[in-house]
């Protein structure tokens, strides 16, 4: 097991910088999820940690060793790829054993480790099958098995669940989290799916345009996003953002050029709420109604902006009607309109 440390890490392709000197410490045993939109640099960062991309500037440390110039195989890390990367011409057993190709263990010890990994991942009955005979989830487990069998200092996951269907993804999320709990190995995990990030991470690293915007535990990122981008990227549905002004502690919708942006999560913006002293009140025309079972999402427009709010499960909100939704005090996030940085709550 090992601590990962990124110090002023830079990646450039020619004159184009894609990672702009990021700093991050991943303590031993932590499960860190890099999340962000496509092209934000999360996979590039992971590949630099793996040694598959050259570092243009700064430093990567694994444990106490600077590994900038160290070959991938010398870093003692295992990586699970988006496309599984399990070899189609080998059986499951051979694929898992391939993780030990350069190991100095005896043949019997290798076989034992493969059996153990197979048992841990529920692959024992499949060990002599070929990857083409397996489902997507089983293939992903083989890829994890091959990574696991080496007892690496850390695991790197590059969007490992993005090729699976929603149900399987949910199941694999639990399996990977459970695996981390049992092995206790440091994990750096890349995804663009904020649900994966929220449910699996000890700490989320939100990235955008080659910068780290925020690195904090999931609920901290959810409750106290540092800027508008993070606020909207984390949480489903996205946080509503409206131009606003604040007078005497009361936030109201702004006309013209605003100095503030007010953000409120759909689950905090309640249709038909009886709150006497709300932090924000919005009134608009309903454009869509989405019953989800335990609750109903109500879409309405305010000053040309689309807003999502929540109504009770069996509400009677009709499309085209006018609704008023209120958010309690303390649940309205304020951002500077110019910098989009967080300014606290109202």
């Amino acid at each position: 097991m090992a601590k990962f440390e990124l110090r002023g890490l830079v990646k450039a392709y020619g004159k184009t910088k894609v990672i702009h000197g990021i700093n991050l410490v991943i303590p031993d045993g932590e499960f860190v999820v890099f999340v962000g939109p496509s092209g934000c640099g999360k996979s590039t960062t992971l590949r630099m940690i793996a040694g598959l991309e050259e570092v243009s500037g700064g430093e990567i440390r694994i444990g106490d060793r600077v590994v900038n110039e160290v070959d991938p195989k010398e870093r003692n890390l295992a990586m699970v790829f988006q496309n599984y990367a399990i070899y189609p011409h080998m059986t499951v057993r051979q694929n898992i054993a391939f993780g030990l190709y350069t190991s100095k263990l005896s043949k019997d010890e290798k076989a034992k480790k493969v059996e153990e990994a197979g048992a841990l991942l529920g692959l024992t009955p499949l060990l002599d099958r070929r990857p083409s005979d397996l489902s997507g989830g089983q293939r992903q487990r083989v890829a994890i098995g091959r990574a696991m069998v080496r007892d690496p200092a850390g695991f790197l996951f590059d969007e490992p669940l993005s090729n699976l269907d929603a149900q399987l993804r949910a199941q694999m999320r639990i399996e990977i989290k459970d695996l981390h709990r049992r092995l206790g190995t440091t994990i750096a995990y890349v995804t663009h799916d904020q649900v994966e990030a929220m449910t699996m991470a000890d700490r989320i690293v939100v990235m955008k345009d080659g910068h780290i915007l925020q690195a904090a535990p999931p609920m901290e990122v959810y409750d106290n996003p540092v800027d508008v981008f993070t606020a909207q990227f984390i949480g489903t549905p996205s946080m509503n953002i409206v131009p606003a002004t604040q007078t005497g502690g009361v936030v109201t919708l702004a006309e013209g050029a605003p100095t503030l942006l007010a953000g409120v999560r759909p689950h905090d913006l309640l249709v038909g709420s009886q709150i006497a002293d709300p932090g924000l009140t919005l009134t608009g025309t309903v454009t869509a109604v989405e019953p989800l079972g335990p609750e109903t999402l109500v879409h309405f427009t305010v000053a040309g902006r689309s807003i999502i709010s929540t109504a009770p499960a069996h509400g009677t909100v009709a499309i085209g009607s006018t609704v008023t939704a209120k958010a309690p005090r303390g649940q309205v996030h304020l951002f500077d309109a110019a910098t989009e940085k967080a300014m606290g709550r109202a």
Partner: protein
Amino acid sequence: MAAIDTTLSPPLPMSRIKPGRIVMWTVLFIGGLLMITPILFMFSTSLKTSSQIYDLRLIPQSPTLANYIEVLTEGQFPRWFLNSSFVAICVTASNIFFDSLVGYTLAKFRFRGRQFVFIAILSTLMIPTEMLVIPWYLMSANFGWLDSYWGIMFPGMMTAFGTFLMKQFFETVPDDFIEAARMDGLNEFTIWWKIAMPLVTPALSALAIFTFLGNWTAFFWPLISTTSKELYTLPVGLTSFAVEQAIQWEMIMTGAAIATIPTLVVFLVLQRYIVRGVMLAGLKG
């Protein structure tokens, strides 16, 4: 449980056969006939005596194996057969190794001058073999390679076509496989050999058969580079049955019939891969 219907489905009614299909089958049939006829006549003539060879009946009146016995027991035919086998196998193995190694390097590594090297290799495809024979000959003469196995083999040990074919196929191998192997601690040569090569088996099979056939039937360069009869390959050796006084057609046909056998074996063994290889080459190329 319902009984399984084992009766054969009735043939398609004539009204459902499209005219286009009839034209296609007719063209294919005529094409097949044109290709198979010389081969059938070759086998037929090999079973005839010298007095019967101008009797153009496909089935000989009194077939004989005497030509086969003579070819295989008298003269140097077995030696030429072995020479051809040795040359074709060595050149094929060399092509599989070097073409795929260079193709892999060009497909999977980024280095300065990569494109230049690739274009340089490709450009050699545009030079006809006949033009290369003189420099090959001069080179062989200077290095003392004339009239040797190496002299016959060296021009074909690596080919631009093979390199191009393998490069195209290696480009279809996902980088994730290679990077996963790098993470597993394999060196670049082992990654090529253990991971990349098994993933391009169809292309390797296609390359193997093209190279083997090309070298098995090669005539011009082996004729020029060899003078000793012991070093003749089969196509060169077969010409010795045609002397100024008489052309022994029945012996030439017998030799050619025997020479066909290895190519048939190679094709039958590898045809599954060849068809796949050719199809993939068409799709990806």
